[in-house]
């Protein structure tokens, strides 16, 4: 059945249409594989009953000639940050113990309504805070490309479960969320495609909030074309999210498969070429440049002068918002409650027990930078720098149509590495964070292998709401990168 699991969405769509196989067969193949690959810990909750029922319904629709479109009957995974009606939602945290939302997030509802079949909820860093998926209350996720040198590897984070599940063929696609790189960095580590759309493109309604001004849902797939198909269904204006944008999405799949990038101008941000960049990352980047040139794009250097402040800015703004967003987990209305003799004590014990170390650290940082006497020096200043960073991109896009950059500074590292010093961990986001701060669309696609045979991703960054151009360039790059998105560990 590994052939069924190795299909792209596009191929599965066509196969279903030709009645080569049924949605139920697709689902059964995946459920069986999920069970067999339990040690990856990619899923927190497997929704086998839901999946079987939805697959059967999809098959029924097909028989009735009432198929809903590209995703009808396609088995996907949902990051466990999206609230799902009647299905436990954890955000990878102990504090949401027993929480079963009576509502479905807008994005997952759109996918459900399009006929996509939810296989389960994927693992993630607690409250999406992390770059390794080791902060999950439900345990670390293993990268299906590992182990290396006898050590299991991280899948990246925070959407590590989704990335691992897509790479290990435990679903055809998955949803992720990206705040500072949480879709793109795990996509790079796991050798898949991950796209963070423009801020405001996908509704945040029903997604457990980490940092509201940065959080954005996006697709994680095994091809650029599939990312386009997924995003087409996920995106769209939602009047329940005041930051959602009423801007037309356009025809994304056509852009992804067009292949023609002649005349497009692609910028290389010179500040990203920092001292100490690994040789293989630099080489990968060069390979990308050459492919784009060979395809007729013009590649030029551009400057994003405030890049070096991005990480510091991000690690003020994101924790500030998180400290406030996570105040609602207080033991009063849902989730974990540790009983105590007073309200304050109940808060302290519930939150002390319910949140892991990384979440507690970020809440503390966030509360600190917002507190009286520090607000101006930290939060306010960070907001000003954020505007400057966004301004860098605006200026660059006066002369170029998109940017090309590496996604992450390294390939996947081993579980347990980089844990001693949070700063080392935060450096994983150095190439992804500036785009997040500017709210721009960006895609990571696998473009080569490291010396250890692990995948490395390149990133295309575009103008606001110009996902189509990002997908067009990514599709062209993908076609010539010659990357076989197959983990060594494929058990099929």
């Amino acid at each position, binding site marked *: 059945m590994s052939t069924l699991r190795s299909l792209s969405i596009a191929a599965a769509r066509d196969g279903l249409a030709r009645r080569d196989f049924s949605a139920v067969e697709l689902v059964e193949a995946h459920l069986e594989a999920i069970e067999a690959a339990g040690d990856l810990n990619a899923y927190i909750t497997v929704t086998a009953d839901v999946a079987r029922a939805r697959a059967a319904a999809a098959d029924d629709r097909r028989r009735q000639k009432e198929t809903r479109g590209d995703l009808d009957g396609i088995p996907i995974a949902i990051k466990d940050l*999206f*609230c799902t009606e009647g299905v436990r*939602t954890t*955000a990878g945290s102990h504090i*949401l113990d027993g*929480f079963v*939302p*009576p*509502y479905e*997030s807008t994005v997952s509802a759109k996918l459900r309504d399009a006929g996509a079949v939810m296989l389960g909820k994927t693992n993630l860093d607690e409250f999406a805070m992390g770059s390794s998926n080791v902060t999950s209350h439900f345990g670390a996720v293993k990268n299906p490309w590992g182990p290396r040198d006898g050590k299991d590897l991280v899948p990246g984070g925070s959407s590590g479960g989704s990335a691992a599940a897509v790479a290990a063929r435990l679903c055809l696609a998955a949803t992720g969320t990206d705040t500072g790189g949480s879709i793109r960095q795990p996509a790079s580590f796991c050798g898949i495609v991950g796209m963070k759309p423009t801020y405001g493109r996908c509704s*945040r*309604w*029903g*997604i*457990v*909030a980490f*940092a*509201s*001004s940065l959080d954005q849902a996006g697709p994680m797939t095994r091809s650029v074309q599939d990312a386009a198909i997924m995003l087409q269904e996920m995106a769209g204006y939602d*009047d*329940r*999210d*005041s*930051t959602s944008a009423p801007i037309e999405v356009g025809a994304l799949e056509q852009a992804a498969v067009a292949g023609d990038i002649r005349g497009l101008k692609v910028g290389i941000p010179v500040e990203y070429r920092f001292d100490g960049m690994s040789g293989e990352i630099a080489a990968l980047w060069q390979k990308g440049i050459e492919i784009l040139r060979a395809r007729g794009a013009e590649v030029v250097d551009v400057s994003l002068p405030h890049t070096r402040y991005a990480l510091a800015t991000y690690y003020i703004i994101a924790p*500030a*918002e998180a*400290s*406030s967003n*996570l*105040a*609602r987990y*207080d033991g*009063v*209305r*849902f989730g974990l409650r540790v009983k105590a003799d007073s*309200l*304050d004590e109940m*808060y302290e014990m519930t939150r002390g027990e319910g949140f892991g170390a990384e979440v507690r650290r970020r809440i503390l940082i966030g*509360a600190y930078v*917002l*507190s*009286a006497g520090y*607000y101006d020096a930290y*939060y306010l200043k960070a907001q000003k720098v954020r505007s400057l960073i966004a301004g860098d991109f605006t200026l660059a896009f006066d002369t170029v149509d998109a940017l090309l950059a590496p996604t992450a500074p390294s390939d996947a590292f081993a579980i347990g590495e980089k844990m001693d010093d949070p700063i080392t961990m935060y450096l994983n986001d150095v190439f992804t964070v500036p785009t997040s701060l500017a709210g721009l669309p960006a895609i990571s696609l696998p473009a080569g292998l490291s010396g250890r045979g692990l995948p490395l991703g390149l990133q295309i960054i575009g103008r606001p709401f110009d996902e189509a151009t990002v997908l067009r360039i990514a599709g062209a790059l993908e076609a010539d990168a010659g990357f076989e998105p197959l983990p060594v560990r494929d058990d099929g």
Partner: protein
Amino acid sequence: MRASCIKENIAKMPYVIHGENRDWEVIVGLEVHAQVKSKAKLFSGAATDFGAEPNSQVSLVDAAFPGMLPVLNGFCIEQAVRTGIGLNAAINLVSVFERKNYFYADLPAGYQISQYQRPLVGEGWVNIDLACGSSKRIGIERLHVEQDAGKSLHDQHPTYTLIDLNRAGVALMEIVSRPDVRSPEEAGAYLRKLRAIVRYLDTCDGNMEQGSMRCDVNVSVRPVGDNELRTRTEIKNVNSVRFVMQAIEREAERQVEVYETGGAVRQETRLYDPTKGETRAMRAKEFAHDYRYFPDPDLLPLTLTAEYVAGIRATMAELPDQRKQRYIDDYGLSAYDAAVLTAEKEAAEYYERLADGRDPKLAANWVITNLFAVLNKQGRSIANSPISADDLGALLDLMTTNKISGRQAKEVFEAMAEGGGKPEAIVAERGLSQITDAGALEAAVDAAIAGNPKQVAQFRGGNDKILGWFVGQIMKATKGQANPGQVNALLRKKLKD
């Protein structure tokens, strides 16, 4: 001049606390939380009815479930803009909602969405009406829009506090005055004026007892003649005009005593205890928060167009001050009467219905002197008046067409106040009517003159006062139905003959 104006001279004197060594004045600023009149909450579609079953008007947004997002209710903003215009205030076309972070069990999100650095409404002013038609301008610093919290119920269970989130997320307007208030009376007049404005505009119920208007009072004192402001205390959540006035009086006296005994007033939050008639300091823990305000990233800055504001301005209901001026200009009422009649929208509407087609001064007199006395005595509001404006109008018509005398009209009015029915029915039932027929009156006058030669002689001897006695005799003889004015004139004429 009305009885209340006997105090005029007193009212014009500044409010001064006579200390042991010197005189002190009180400086007061008020922060009023007025609940926006709206069917739905500020950021959710949940209902806002008062007195509903606990937790029956709570949406997932109000309960701050994971992933829920606020969506601004445009009607609440319209109401707040309307109120801002009513306060003669600048409307800020860009304002920002911020998060005020603190933990409490009835604050589901752990933050209140409020406005901080950039409020919707900027500086304005209101005129307050003081005794005898005088008025004073009180500055408004700002009006901002925010969410209310839920309610903690500490007395429903021996060991648990229960939470009712019906109120959580309801829209409030916080209206902050300048420290322009100088006495408890002015504070009372300010609150009554604010209440009148929001009721005229239909933007708030203005009901302090139900909590749709709540008040925090900032109080400081300083020696008369000083210009520097001294440390103020804040008295939280005072829930009636009377208590606000009492609280200011007590707190000012306390502060004077503190200074005069060599102490210093601490900046702190206090509560007013109406049963003991004193303020007491809250524990530091009850108010010492660092709220960590920052712009709410779930909401974009609120941007209004000048056209939008102009549209609201064009549809403003008449305000109390405008109505008061109209009464002075069109009805010829005194400033005092006009202020009294316009203080409550319902009273003004009652008055206008009554004055329609009648003598406006007579109508004003009857409402202020007679009707308000009855309402006061019966403890009723004008909305529940025992006498409708139409019935009172019918009564005045009987009087002005000389069907009944003024004295009879009072009698009928008292009967109406006790639920006696329509004025015409009472007049008929009691056989009240006025003899205005000249022939009949002349006969009665002639009979009185003929029957009392001794008194006639006294009158002609120069005792003018005896005339009143004659009127009394004739009224008695006619069972009070003779028109006193006509009787008077006839008597004079005939006695002098």
